[in-house]
């Protein structure tokens, strides 16, 4: 699914990712942990194609070189990023945004665009499945949403767009336990043998609900250790300092 080799990324001449290697196979869920400033969010940004980075190395998604692809084409090919800080867009109805988004993705895949009725049906189904109040969808996109509502909205979007590869950038940060369960449930209910996930987190807490196949420790732009879910528990006890 995803193959990253010797990935280097810098912004304003500041080197952040310094030779990162990572392979994610279909159906796998990888967790990335690491101290602040280790390059976790940069990895998410670079995978999704955010502008402003100098990039070298290899980054293949489903056999295709990602580096040259614009952001929206990556999204259309099935890469989804749940933002750490979802953006507020005043005046734009959340439902409307989501429908435009879904139809762009469907169109790119050569599928038929959904009309309003089938779209609303889909939204209703997915939001009730997740236990998210669909009222948030009739509000302006993320405007005046609480931190938890924003994150839930990201997960709902993930469910509706149904991407093959989802990146969650600290989606668990700042969530209460109920919201955390909704997020975990959103991920768990989406897992199939064909879909993969990259979950970036600071805390072991999320991994009590989401079972990763691999846990990686990112430090100073490189993965310094890889293990299974026990590694997360070890980190929680010992802190990053002791791992190397």
């Amino acid at each position, binding site marked *: 699914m995803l193959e990253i080799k010797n990935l280097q990324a810098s912004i304003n001449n500041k080197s952040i990712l310094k030779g990162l290697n990572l392979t994610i196979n279909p159906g796998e869920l990888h967790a990335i942990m690491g101290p602040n400033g280790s390059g976790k969010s940069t990895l998410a940004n670079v995978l999704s194609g955010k502008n402003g980075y100098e990039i070298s190395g290899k980054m293949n998604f489903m056999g295709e070189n990602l580096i040259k692809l614009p*952001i929206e084409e990556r999204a259309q090919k099935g890469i989804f990023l749940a*933002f750490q800080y979802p953006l507020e867009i005043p005046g734009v109805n959340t439902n409307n945004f989501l429908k435009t988004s879904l139809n762009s993705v469907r169109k790119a895949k050569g599928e038929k665009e959904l009309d309003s009725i089938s779209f609303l049906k889909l939204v209703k189904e997915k939001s009730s499945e997740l236990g998210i109040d669909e009222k948030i969808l009739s509000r302006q*996109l993320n405007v005046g949403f609480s931190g938890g509502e924003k994150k839930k909205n990201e997960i709902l979007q993930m469910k509706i*767009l149904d991407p093959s590869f989802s990146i969650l950038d600290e989606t668990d940060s700042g969530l209460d336990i109920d919201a955390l369960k909704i997020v975990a449930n959103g991920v768990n209910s989406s897992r199939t043998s064909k879909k993969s996930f990259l979950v970036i987190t600071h805390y072991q807490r999320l991994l009590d609900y989401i079972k990763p196949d691999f846990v990686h420790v990112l430090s100073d732009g490189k993965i310094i250790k890889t293990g299974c879910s026990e590694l997360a528990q070890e980190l929680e006890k010992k802190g990053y300092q002791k791992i190397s």
Partner: protein
Amino acid sequence: MKQQEQIEKVKEYKYGFTTDIESIKSPKGLNEEVIKFISKIKKEPKWMLEWRLNAFKRLKNLKEPNWQKPKYPKINYQDLYYYSAPKSSKDKPKSLSEVDPKLLETYAKLGIPLKEQEKLSGVAVDAVFDSVSVATTFKDKLTEKGIIFCSISEAIQKHPDLVKKYLGSVIPITDHFFATLNSAVFTDGSFVYIPEGVRCPMELSTYFRINASETGQFERTLIIADKGSYVSYLEGCTAPMRDENQLHAANVELVALDDAEIKYSTVQNWYPGDKDGKGGIYNFVTKRGACRGKNSKISWTQVETGSAITWKYPSCILQGDNSVGEFYSIAITNNYQKADTGTKMIHIGKNTKSKIISKGISAGHADNTYRGLVDINKKASNARNYTQCDSLLMGNKCGAHTVPYIKNKNHSSIVEHEATTSKINEEQLYYCNQRGLNQEEAVGLIVNGFCKEVLQQLPMEFAVEAQKLVGISLEGSVG
């Protein structure tokens, strides 16, 4: 022009076609003879000709305004045609079936299928092609209610009392250069009269189009809402692409009597010039409404996306006690377009209220100015104004300016003014792109969100069109 270039150009401005129709033109130039020619060809009564000549006399003492921000090269008024009419409509068509099919084709290209509209949408349309009003649909249905909706030329002949009473009563012939020029040479436009207590059952609509070259377009619109009546009126405008600048100087007068309400919406999409700023329409328009009666209301909504230069201030004179004036505006300027637009709210009556919501968007090298006056007279006790001006900038070569004039001569009145300027946010674009939207879709979405308060004011069927237009106008503005 090579075919490819032509295709490119048409892509930029989809209304940029000309229609090959023979036309009757007045001699070039501005003088008494030309005014007499216009009046004669329109079979006007003598009083109308005198009114025009009177305006022309005044014009000689007036100078073009030059306080506005956009400057333009001197216009040679002697080098313009002041009247141009499609030949085939010399004898006015009595129904749509008599209209030149080529004209109808033009309107279809503009996205106004008159026939369709007549049957389906319940919108009565008066279409002005160059200088002549072509067809008014739905006449019969309106006549039943006593509503008059016709071209101003027809109104001058058939309803002289109403025209004499109200024409020039809001914009006097002494007003200012462009308004007075219009009074002297106006060619056609719409006339609406809604009788006492009648609620107009459908949207009334006019489409203006400049077709002939070197032609100025001077429409005149007069709308009168008698006591307790209501009307919603929409105008749309397009013009072909030409290298020279064309002048459009329209006058619109609205009169609302006791308890009457007029809602006037404009979607202005005149040719804006090419991406290097060549050509385009000079849109120098005077629009003014008088809330003459108590509890009357006039609401202006405008979506200004076209024209090389837009210079207009749809205003409300709030004479009647408890009258209400509203101004909702979106002005989008891209490439080298310039807009200087806003409103005047003149509070005269007691408890008068006004609300101004202005959204200016600049991209490319464009320059966008909001200029507005809130004037509260001594006797206008408890008057209230709320103004909000938001500017959105795209890129770093464009400009946004807000110039509010506030005069409050009454102690019991309250005036509020809020203004914001922001740049389109890269992070918002990134977020939209990540959800599969391309750059243009993302910009369209964000800008439409920015304009939402104003778009909501438009009649349903036009809101959709305006939303698309907002997206189209900004194409290529984010690199």
